């Protein structure tokens, strides 16, 4: 006898402990099994695009801090200033390039720590891994605070360089962090990487096949976990990433576990890049002379970087005035959500939050 059951609709979010902000999913459930999912966006929409049209190019930089991925502000800054520099054809001093790379890689570590911690938290590991990762992130935030004066909204990069040179106590502290960090990553591995419950919860769960990942414009660790070896730092090197040796960790199955492992491995690779960048850091100016009210030539540009969550692109159209004619942000977590339904359908309610956690969205970037 087949028991006929009535599907019922569950609104997960916008107020839910593990939707990472104000994300809302309309789940159609058959018992515990997810039959359908429809994401609902827009609860954090601040209209970054529209605001930018009334700001000068310089004034948009603090906007990228907070209107986008607020867990990776440095990467947002970097992506934006690179796009503007490409548009206005500005040369950046060598030291500034290195400082930017150092900041971007520190940001990546910090962001991945949060991503992995919150994913494990969604899995039900009662805040412990998260607290450990917060501890490491705290060290990085200290360093960010040292160079930029704030802990989250750095506003550090400038068109043509960085706002200030790093203080002299920055490099010794960073070196110390770089030395310690691999040891802590080992500790996280010991904590949970072989945990049977974690393996059971994540292996084979939420599989995103490689072709679907590419077709649905997934990027970053989500794409790489599906086995596509695509990293803009290597594929389309911006700034000075072509000078560093690092590997691109990829997964094979494209499941939650692979995304988790890819993030952990990327942290190790970021530490490697940091080591090289510190060793190579040249002296010199930290900022090119750029007019304060920059007027880029008429034109358009699409600049992209490999932000911690994937390809962060800025599409800028200039009409020769001091404010961009059009600014569009290609938010990686927004587009990574495209394939969410395919990953989730057929799994249980408990898996929904884990899969969502493994995609690692930041609502600031999804809704912009």
């Amino acid at each position, binding site marked *: 006898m087949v028991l006929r059951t009535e599907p019922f609709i569950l609104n997960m979010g916008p107020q839910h402990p593990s939707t990472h902000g104000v994300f809302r999913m309309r789940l159609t459930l058959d018992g515990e099994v997810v039959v359908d999912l429809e994401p609902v966006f827009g609860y954090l929409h601040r209209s970054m695009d529209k605001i930018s049209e009334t700001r000068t190019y*310089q*004034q948009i930089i603090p906007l990228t801090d907070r209107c986008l991925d607020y867990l990776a502000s440095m990467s947002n800054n970097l992506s934006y200033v690179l796009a503007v520099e490409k548009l206005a054809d500005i040369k950046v001093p060598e030291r500034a390039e290195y400082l930017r790379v150092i900041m971007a890689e520190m940001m990546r570590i910090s962001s991945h720590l949060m991503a992995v911690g919150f994913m494990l938290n969604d899995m039900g590991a009662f805040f412990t891994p998260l607290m450990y990762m917060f*501890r490491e992130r705290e*060290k990085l935030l200290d360093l960010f*605070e040292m160079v930029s004066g704030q802990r989250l909204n750095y506003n550090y990069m400038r068109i043509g360089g960085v706002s200030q040179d790093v203080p002299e106590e920055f490099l010794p502290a*960073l070196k110390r962090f770089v030395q310690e960090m691999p040891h802590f990553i080992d500790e996280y591995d010991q904590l949970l990487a072989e945990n049977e419950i974690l393996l059971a919860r994540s292996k084979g769960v939420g599989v995103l096949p490689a072709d679907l990942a590419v077709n649905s414009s997934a990027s970053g660790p989500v794409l790489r976990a599906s086995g596509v070896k695509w990293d803009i730092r290597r594929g389309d090197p911006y700034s000075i990433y072509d000078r560093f040796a690092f590997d691109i960790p990829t997964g094979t199955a494209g499941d939650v576990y692979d995304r988790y492992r890819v993030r952990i491995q990327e942290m190790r690779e970021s530490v490697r890049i940091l080591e090289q960048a510190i060793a190579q850091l040249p002296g010199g100016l930290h900022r090119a002379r750029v007019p304060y009210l920059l007027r880029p030539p008429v034109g358009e540009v699409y600049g992209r970087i490999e932000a911690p969550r994937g390809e962060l692109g800025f599409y800028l159209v200039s009409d020769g005035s001091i404010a961009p004619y059009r600014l569009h942000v290609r938010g990686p977590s927004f587009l990574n959500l495209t394939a969410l339904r395919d990953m989730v359908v057929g799994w249980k309610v408990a898996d929904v939050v884990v899969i969502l956690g493994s995609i690692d969205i930041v609502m600031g970037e999804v809704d912009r």
Partner: protein
Amino acid sequence: MPFNRYGAGIARGMLMTLKHVFRQPITTQYPEWRLNNSKRIRGFELVWVPVKCTGCTTCAKACPQGNIEIVTSRGEDNSYAVDKFEVDIGRCKSCGLCVESCPFEALFMSRNYELAQYQRRKLVQGKEEVRMSDKKQPSAYCKPWLEASMPAQSLLVNGERRGR
């Protein structure tokens, strides 16, 4: 899948957490213990030095929020006198662009960060409140020569985190 399933990973993880019991908590007990902030801290208000200010309004132009209001009048010796310098720190997002743009070193970020008020209108700071005073010390944001006289920031990397 070649992984052990009988609980060895669980045991390792539990040993790991047990190891952490014997480590020092990293939390700072905030109101009692204070950490040294960054020398470049961008506090929640501005510090204005009227003597140096020429009323050029570069800062007001640089502000993304349009948050700085400056009214000037022509003084006796043909220089600007600043009649009004008003900042609504409730709308300020501490981006520091005004400080960075000031050509005369007349504007600084403050080191203060505990500025809660009961009413929004009290956050509007006029000429007298913005002025540099003993309670409002400038931070070294974009003013690197101030850094030498400031206490070093307490860093968790160096284990200096317990505060005083």
